């Protein structure tokens, strides 16, 4: 972990900078863990929007927050069954 941090931040970053970035990441995680409802709500709304344009497989859908290096990413894996004709034609 320390190794990763020093690789990401390089040698000349102060310990306060490192603390700040570590905190940023840990807070993103803590906050989503506190409310799984948050991700659930997000998923519901994603389905609603995406379904206007394509037919998706809701059961196979996966929405998570992932931390990599010094970034947090929202990763959504949404299997598409088919595009809707209207959306394509528009």
């Amino acid at each position: 972990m320390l190794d990763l941090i020093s690789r990401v931040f390089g040698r000349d970053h102060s310990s306060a900078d490192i603390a700040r970035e570590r905190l940023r990441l840990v807070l993103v995680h803590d906050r989503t863990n506190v409310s799984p409802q948050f991700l659930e709500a997000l998923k519901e709304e994603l389905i609603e929007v995406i379904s206007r344009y394509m037919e998706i497989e809701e059961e196979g859908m996966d929405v998570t927050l992932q931390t990599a290096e010094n970034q947090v990413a929202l990763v959504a894996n949404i299997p598409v069954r088919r595009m809707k004709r209207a959306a394509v034609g528009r």
Partner: protein
Amino acid sequence: MGQVIVVTSGKGGVGKTTTTANLGTALAQLGNRVVLVDADIGLRNLDVVMGLENRIVYDLVDVVEGNARLKQALIKDKRSENLYLLAAAQTREKKDVSAEQMKNLTDQLAREFDFVLLDCPAGIEDGFKNAIAGAQKAIIVANPEVSSVRDADRVIGLWDAQEGERSPAMLIVNRVRPRMVARGDMLEIDDMLEMLAVDLLGVVPEDDHIIVSTNRGEPAVYSRDSKAGKAFHNIARRLMGEAVPILDLEADESFWARFKRIVGFGRS
């Protein structure tokens, strides 16, 4: 009706009891009627920090269980007009008091006092839930360290999720060491505020006077040359609604930090 304010942190040992004692004393010095409530049942501390440990006859649990009247259990601090302490029970447990009982107690106190300050136990379990039950305001104490800020975030989330009328949490950053901040070896206040998305109530520097004053049982606000004491005084005035600017000097900013800011590197 007075204000009921809980002093809490999540993480232990960051300065809740020190803050409660100093802020309460400062508020009383400024002419308010103040009662300090030690809600850390089983780990009584506030009494020794206030130097009132020899005068306790009845405690919070005695009042809640009806073994003593509230008036009997309130200990008057002889050094300050209008400053009282309600001690925690030492030989009981957090679960011996319910959130409802705490709320009734603080409601009753708010009728008599301008400020009811609750010294909350560490953690987010029963003791915490009881302590926040009757509070309308929350002061979150945090040290400029990753673990402390993380726990502060958790507590702020729990505070926001509580039902009832409550003001947004206010942050006190305690044990700031300006030299370390200037050197880049301590989290900056601005970064903490941005991450926690809270209002800043004050910044208290690391100060040897705190230890000396705790040895003596005299809160640092009594001492003229305590920087932490001065910071707590300013916080008391802010709580009373005065717009006291948060001076860098409060944290004894080093010459170097100021220089860096003037020259324009250091993030301000």
